[in-house]
């Protein structure tokens, strides 16, 4: 492994960290310009101005914005995300189980969606412009065109209401047996798979078809390789970088974009947590969740970049 690869990877990671700091500023600034006053909303409309002023003092809301930012950032860097305004609980403690639940759901959705999308993409290329290709593309397009809440309710209607095979509400709790947990998330995971599948499948198909124009594909065909061997051995390795990119983008969506699906299935994940606290104007929680989402998003993109660098033989094996 030559040094140019290490330099490139180090650059990507450094840029990612820089980006994360920039995002933290944006999140902080964004939550500051939200309308409404936290102290007022905690105490309610009937609170006396003195009580509101006291609470503001107590919460540190009277300090200048930059001081509050650095105070918050310092806490984040030492693992202290602050405490919720409304219930005075430590955010880190309430957030972690939620994060695990979201990751659990995203993991199982990804385990199904990624291989399925790539295999379907390969099949579509193998039988390109034939009925198999058109069927795969058509179904994928249909599933991606339906909004996720619609898919969610459709799934609930078919598998929880009409046929009562699966629960309509995906309740999970600590100490729940593993298989019960799996059963609980079948419907939300299916909804997520249907949402991300088409994007990954179509990008896989496009990336490989692009490579199929290359002269070395003709070389492989003229060696007498079968069509599927040509795609698998010669086209796929050269289409890895764009495929990884779209896979990572969708993995990020599975974690960051699950809000709607979690709310529909009342799944105790990050999305639900975020929505609950936005309603309550609980700014520290919104900041913390936003930062976690940003970190995951940037992290996955760094992974995609690094994987694309490693997939390039010109960078892996310099002259």
């Amino acid at each position, binding site marked *: 492994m030559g040094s140019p690869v290490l330099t490139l990877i180090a650059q990507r990671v450094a840029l990612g960290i820089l980006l994360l700091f920039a995002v933290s500023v944006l999140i902080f600034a964004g939550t500051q310009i939200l309308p409404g006053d936290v102290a007022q909303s905690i105490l309610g409309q009937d609170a006396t101005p003195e009580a509101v002023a006291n609470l503001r003092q107590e919460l540190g809301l009277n300090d200048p914005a930059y001081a509050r930012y650095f105070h918050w950032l310092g806490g984040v860097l030492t693992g202290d995300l602050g405490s919720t305004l409304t219930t005075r609980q430590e955010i880190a403690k309430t957030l972690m189980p939620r994060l695990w639940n979201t990751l659990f759901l995203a993991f199982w959705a990804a385990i199904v969606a990624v291989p399925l999308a790539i295999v379907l993409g390969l099949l579509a290329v193998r039988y390109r412009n034939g009925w198999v290709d058109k069927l795969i593309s058509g179904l994928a397009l249909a599933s991606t065109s339906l909004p996720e809440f619609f898919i969610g309710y459709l799934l609930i209607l078919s598998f929880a209401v009409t046929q009562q095979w699966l629960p309509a509400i995906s309740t999970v709790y600590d100490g729940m047996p593993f298989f019960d947990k799996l059963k609980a998330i079948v419907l939300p995971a299916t909804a997520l798979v249907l949402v991300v599948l088409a994007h990954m499948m179509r990008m896989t198909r496009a990336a490989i078809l692009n490579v199929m124009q290359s*002269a*070395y594909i003709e*070389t492989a065909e003229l*060696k007498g390789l079968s069509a599927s061997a040509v795609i698998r051995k010669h086209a796929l*390795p050269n289409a890895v970088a764009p495929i990884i990119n779209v896979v990572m983008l969708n993995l990020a969506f599975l974690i960051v974009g699950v809000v709607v699906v979690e709310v529909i299935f009342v799944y105790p994940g990050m999305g639900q947590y975020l929505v609950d606290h936005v309603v309550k104007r609980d700014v520290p929680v919104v900041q913390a969740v936003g930062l976690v989402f940003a970190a995951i998003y940037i992290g996955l993109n760094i992974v995609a970049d690094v994987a694309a660098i490693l997939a390039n033989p010109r960078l892996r*094996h310099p002259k």
Partner: protein
Amino acid sequence: MMVKVRTKPRREPDILLDIRNLKVEATVYSPGEKPRDVTIVDGVSLLLKRGKVLGLIGESGAGKSTIGLSSMGYGRGGVRITGGEVFLNGRDILKGGVRDLRRVRGSEVCYVAQSAAAAFNPALRLMDQVVEAALLHGVGAKAEAEKRAVALFTKLRLPDPKSIGCRYPHQVSGGQLQRVMTAMALCSEPDLIVFDEPTTALDVTTQIDVLAAIKDAIRDTGVAALYITHDLAVVAQVSDEIMVLRDGKMVEHGETQQIIKAPRMDYTKALVSVRSIEHEEKGPTPKPLLSVEHVTAAYGGGAVKVLQDVSVNVQPGQTLAVVGESGSGKSTLARAITGLLPPVAGSITFADRTLTPKLADRSKDDLRQLQMIYQMADVALNPRQTVRTIIGRPLEFYFGMRGKERDARVTELLDEIEMSKGFIDRYPAELSGGQKQRVCIARALAAKPKLIICDEVTSALDPLVADGILKLLLRLQKIEDVAYLFISHDLATVKAIADSIAVIYRGEVVRYGSKTQVLTPPFDAYTDLLLSSVPEMEVGWLEHAIHGRRMESAGN
């Protein structure tokens, strides 16, 4: 599962390939028209004996590659074999299905492509690609195939034959890659190899090495070959017989000696006598038009020096040819003169005034008097503009011509480049390669320049078309009294057009003077190599040239 026992029916021991009445068609989809079928190859028959080499020659579009690929039952990019028979080892391969064809490809017939750099998979090591077909068709186990590959690397005179297979394609030079590709074709011990312009993309000095390696390999392994090229001098070195093709039909077929020494058909005669332009060298003039003095140019902020202390002059109304192989700095010289790459040191004087190093600082008149023509006429023309707009643009920009006045001048210019008024409303896509280059020339002339820099303007063209362009350039020089700085890697072209020559090698001028001076011995080692590497239409030239060489080429 992949390993199959090789069975090669051999009914007629002597005849390997027998193509009868081949017809190949393709469907053309031009915008705004109904799809129509065009015939690419029409009724071509050929016979190839075991161990013999047949050269297929013709210009682009003659159907050479299509015929070569039909011996593998392959149609490139939607091309269909619609008629005729292809007997290989005594059976018609077009009769069987795809499975039968796959058994032929890579086992009985192998293919060597024009651009090995594009034909190798960039993601796989060379060795894996070289032995792939042999393993697929069960020609021995992996260890055995790799041993054979190393032996072939040695035979093809590749450096480091034991370990070169561990490299990736981008780690090996173009000339070496072309030889690895030949080894790949030979590795599955086929009966026939289709060589499709294997040396066309290489420098002359590299071409000769690859050509010699291919020739030795053919001789030693006894494989038969179809050798496809547009260069008659190249094909004369390797083939026993030559077939001349034009527009998908056979023009002439005969022994190599007969085709190059006593061609019967007019078209073959034209191909043989190509590049026989007689150009009388002009004498020196009191004052040069362009004077490049001690110019050093570099890329990457001075990190990579591409030109070192280059000094050359161009006389008014004359042609200076700059010759060298790829990477020698020829085009960088053009970029330095035009101001696209400001030189690190040195000065450039043009028509009695010193040019500013940067393009942005130059006056409109400086820009007008110094025009450029490029190698790829295709990409130098805006595909969405008509010929009228393309040639009219410099007339508007430099002379403020509008409407009828401009159109009249465009027609005049079209006349000068031997194209009729009917072309004025055509788009570049509706022109042939030669016509596009002519439009580029007209566009340069429209500015009434004193100097035109021609960067490999004939390299992408077929020999006969290139000849036409050279003749046109010479005629225009007489009429317009314009000077040319003619950049080329092709000495035959340079001989035809130059008044003085500068030979450039790794960024330095190694020989400079009038054409006669430069081309008269005694030569320096590099000029000698360059001159002796240009293929001559003479059977046995290759062996003679290899034997008499004094230095190795730089970039193979």
